[in-house]
C-alpha cells in the first residue's frame, strides 16, 4: 500500500496531497498541464524532494521529513515509465530491459532468463538486438514497461504512457497496458490527459479536486465553466 501525505511549494502554487493507493489498485491522475501530476510522480520516485510530509510504501517510509528519511531513487524499488519512455538510445532493446538487473549485480544467467521471459511476454524477443532508438512507438512503450516491470517494483508509476502513440495504436495499447498492470498486482499511479481512461482522481493546482468516474469528472469540468 502506498501512503502519501506531502506538501511542496511550486512556482505557481503549493502542492498539498493526501493519497492512499492499495495493493493491486490503479489510481489515474487527470488534470491540466502544470497542475502537478508529473511532479507528484517525481516526488514519489525520489527524483524531487517534498518540503515536508511522508511517503510510505508497504509501511516502509521512502520519505519522512520528521524522521529525516529520504531514500534515493535507486533504493525505492519503484518502476517508472516516463512520458518520453526514456529508453537508452545507445543500448539494444535487450540491454535496456536488462539494465535494472545489471544495476543490482545479478548473475548474468539469471538476467538472461528473466529478460528472455519479459521480452517474449511483451512480444519483443524478435527485436531484442535492435537499438532502442530504432523501434516503433508501440514497441518503445512495451520496452519501457518491460524495463520497469522486470525489477519487480513494489509500485508502478506511468506518466502519460499512451501520449507518444498515434490514436490507432493507443486503443490497442490501452487494453494491453490494463492487462499488464492487472497481472503485476502492485499499486499503480497513471498520469493521463485522456478521460477515456477510467478516472478516479482529478488534480487541480496541486490539490485533489475530486475522486470519481470519468463521466463525473467530465460533468464536474463542465460545471466549472
Amino acid at each position, binding site marked *: 500500500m502506498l501512503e502519501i501525505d506531502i506538501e511542496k511549494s511550486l512556482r505557481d502554487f503549493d502542492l498539498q496531497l493526501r493519497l492512499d493507493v492499495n495493493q493491486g489498485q490503479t489510481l489515474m491522475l487527470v488534470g491540466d498541464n502544470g497542475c502537478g501530476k508529473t511532479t507528484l510522480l517525481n516526488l514519489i*520516485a525520489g*527524483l524531487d524532494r517534498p518540503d515536508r510530509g511522508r511517503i510510505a510504501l508497504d509501511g516502509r517510509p521512502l520519505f519522512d521529513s520528521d524522521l529525516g528519511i529520504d531514500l534515493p531513487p535507486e533504493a525505492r524499488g519503484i518502476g517508472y515509465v*516516463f512520458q518520453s519512455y*526514456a529508453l*537508452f538510445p*545507445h543500448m539494444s532493446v535487450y540491454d535496456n530491459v536488462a539494465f*535494472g538487473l545489471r544495476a543490482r549485480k545479478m548473475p548474468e544467467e539469471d538476467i538472461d532468463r528473466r529478460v528472455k521471459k519479459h521480452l517474449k511476454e511483451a512480444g519483443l524477443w524478435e527485436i531484442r538486438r535492435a537499438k532502442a*532508438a530504432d523501434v516503433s512507438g508501440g514497441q518503445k512503450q512495451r520496452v519501457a514497461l518491460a524495463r520497469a516491470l522486470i525489477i519487480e517494483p513494489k509500485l508502478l508509476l506511468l506518466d502519460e504512457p499512451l501520449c507518444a502513440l498515434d490514436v490507432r495504436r493507443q486503443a490497442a495499447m490501452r487494453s494491453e497496458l490494463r492487462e499488464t498492470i492487472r497481472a503485476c498486482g502492485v499499486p499503480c499511479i497513471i498520469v493521463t490527459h485522456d478521460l477515456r481512461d477510467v478516472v478516479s482522481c482529478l488534480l487541480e493546482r496541486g490539490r485533489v479536486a475530486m475522486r470519481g468516474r470519468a463521466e463525473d469528472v467530465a460533468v464536474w469540468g463542465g460545471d466549472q465553466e
Partner: protein
Amino acid sequence: MVLFGEGGLTELANQENETIGIAVASRSRLREIALKAGLGLLLALAMAFIALPVLALFLRSPLPSIAEALHDPVVIDALRLSLMTSSITTLIVVIMGTPIAYVSARFSYPGKELADSLIDLPVIMPPAVAGIALLMAFGRMGLAGHYVSSFGISIAFTTLAVILAQVFVSSPFYIRQARTSFEDVDIALENAARTLGASRTRTFFYVILPIAMNGLLSGAIMAFARSLGEFGATIMFAGNFQGRTQTMPLAIYTAMQGDLDVALCISIILVAFSFAVIVLVKVLTRRVYKRC
C-alpha cells in the same frame, strides 16, 4: 480611332498583366542569379584566402626536403616533445575537465556564472598574456611558485611549464564542448537509470558518458590540436630550449631565423596534422544518437 468592346478591353488588360508578370518574373530571376553569383564569388574568395597560404606552403617545400627535415634532430626533438606534451595535456584536461563540465551542465551553485566565465577566459586571453600570468603564478618568485620552489621544485622553463601552458589555453576548448554534450543528454534518461536502481556513478558511466562520448572525443581532439599549436604562452612561460621546451611552433619560429626550408617542413607537418584533426572531429560529431 479604334474602339474596343468590353471583351477586347479585358483581353488587353490580361495581355498587359501577362507582360508585367513576365517582366517581374524575369527581374526576380535576374536578382536570384545575381545573388547566387555574388555568394559564389564570396565563397570562392574566402576559400582562396584560406587555401592560398596552405598551397604556398606545399609548393615552396618539395617532398624530398620534407623527408630530409624529418631526420633533422631539431625537428625530431620538437615533434617528439609536441606529441608527448600535447598527449599529457589532453589526458589532464579530460580527467579534470569532464567532472567540471558535467557539474556545470547539470547543477546550479552560487557563483556558477563567474566560474563558467573564468573557465572560458583563456579562449579570449592573448596567449602572451597567459604566459606572463602563468609566470607570475608559477615562476620562481610567483604566487604559488614561491612555495613550490622552497621544496627545490622549479616549474618555469621546464617541460612541466610547457604542459601547464598547454592545459591553461586548451582546457576551455574541451570543457565547453563537454558541457554542451552533457546538456544535450536528456535528463529523463538519467532519471530512468536512477529509478531502475543505478547509482549516480553507474548512471554516469553507463548512460550519460556513452551518449555524450562523441562530443567529448571531439572536444578532446580540439584540445589536443590547440595544445599542438600553442606558441605564445609556452615561449613566455617555458622558454625555447631544444628537447626540453621547444615544441613544433617554437621550432618553426627558431628555424625562421636561420633555415626557412626547415620552418616550411615543420609547418607542413603541423598543417597535415591539423587537417586530419578537423576531418576526425567532423566524422565524430556526425554520429549522434537519436532520441528515444
